[in-house]
């Protein structure tokens, strides 16, 4: 299926409708496999069973960054190739990205509590994810305050690209800020090396999360396309109304 074929929204909707049941099935299957492997994973010699939180925390962190990268690529499509579905993809991805970033933060805090005694210790990695969460909320706020989709798309595109450029800088400066003040005794979150018996369930869960994200994203894009159709229909209804020429 050539990519240009997807440019037409109605064909995209038809494709999504056909793909959706398969995607949902694959996601459920992937989660089933992942959770079985997670159940079988051994406890960590240091943290005990709390390492099981990692199987949710790390995949959602990867998704949080991955979705922003996806949005950056999509907005590149808006600015450079004027691809009609690009800003639909970017707008649909933002809330999903924010949700997974929130999940990453929550699980990070729940994982930190037994170790550090408090929920939040401004750990370098978690803090970067927190800043990323603020950026997601910023983009969503931008989409919500500008009604005209094309104007909002260009503004969101600029913001997303600048955000993508800034993410590494933010990550590095937060690390520097953290090590500057923080006594070195803080246990690093992910632990020194990941033992294969823990790595395999982690990868399985990562695949499951990825499938979940793809399913949710396609569904959200479908909604966004319908929302834009409603908008054009309303515009046409106003123009079609009698005596609306002036």
């Amino acid at each position, binding site marked *: 299926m050539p990519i240009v074929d997807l440019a037409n929204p109605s064909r995209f909707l038809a494709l999504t409708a056909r793909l959706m049941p398969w995607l949902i099935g694959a996601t459920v299957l992937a989660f089933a496999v992942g959770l079985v492997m997670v159940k079988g994973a051994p406890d960590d010699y240091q943290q005990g069973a709390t390492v099981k939180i990692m199987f949710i925390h790390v995949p959602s962190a990867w998704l949080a960054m991955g979705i922003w990268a996806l949005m950056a690529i999509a907005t590149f499509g808006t600015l450079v190739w004027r691809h009609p579905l690009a800003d639909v993809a970017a707008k649909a991805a933002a809330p999903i990205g924010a949700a997974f970033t929130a999940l990453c933060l929550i699980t990070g805090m729940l994982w930190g509590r037994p170790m550090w005694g408090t929920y939040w210790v401004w750990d370098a990695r978690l803090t970067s994810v927190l800043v990323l969460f603020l950026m997601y909320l910023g983009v969503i706020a931008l989409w919500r305050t500008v*009604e005209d989709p094309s104007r909002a798309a260009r503004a969101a595109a600029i913001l997303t690209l600048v955000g993508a450029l800034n993410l590494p800088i933010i990550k590095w400066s937060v690390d520097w800020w953290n090590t500057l003040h923080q006594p070195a005794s803080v246990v690093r979150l992910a632990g020194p090396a990941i033992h294969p018996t823990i790595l395999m369930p982690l990868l399985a869960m990562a695949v499951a999360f990825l499938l979940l994200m793809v399913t949710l994203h396609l569904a959200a894009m479908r909604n966004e396309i319908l929302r834009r159709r409603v908008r054009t229909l*309303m515009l046409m*209804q106003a123009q079609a109304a*009698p*005596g*609306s*020429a*002036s």
Partner: protein
Amino acid sequence: MAQVQLEGSGLTCVRGGREVFSGLNFAVGGGEALLVTGRNGAGKSSLLRMVAGLVRIAAGRMGLTGGDPERTIPEQAHYLGHQDALKPSLTVAENLEFWSRYLGGAGGAMPALAAVGLDSLAELPAAYLSAGQRRRLSVARLVAVRRPIWLLDEPTAALDRQAQERLSLLMREHLASGGLIVAATHGPVGLDNARELRLGAAA
């Protein structure tokens, strides 16, 4: 409506330190229309806004006889300004219902929308309306709430011929029911027995 009579005597208006007009006298009875004409800046809008209580009366007196004694002139007047007082994110019906309830009307929007031909767009957000449609939605406010005095600032602006005819029909009905109209305008408004008050003639 009881027979009302609006008079202004020796009215002086000062805006931003500049005397717009002074010593102005006018009188409008129920069923009559007064067309305020004059070049831009002669104070047409200022006179209307003065009657609406939005501009301070520097000197002179304005009185309304026959209206509701407890209510001030602005509370018995409709002001149709250059802006339409509409919120784009609210639907057509929501906008009109709000103004109808806020200005003391019964709150029913549909009859007024029908009078201006917007009933088919009731559930549409006002953002999607054209300038003419927004203007007609603003006019619907005058129909939804009955008030004796109509202050119309260039009412025919942005209206097409059919909408202008509909407006002059509404104005004739208002006059027939004993109301009065003071309209700032350049051209004719489709009213036959309207008197004219020329501002800035002396300049």
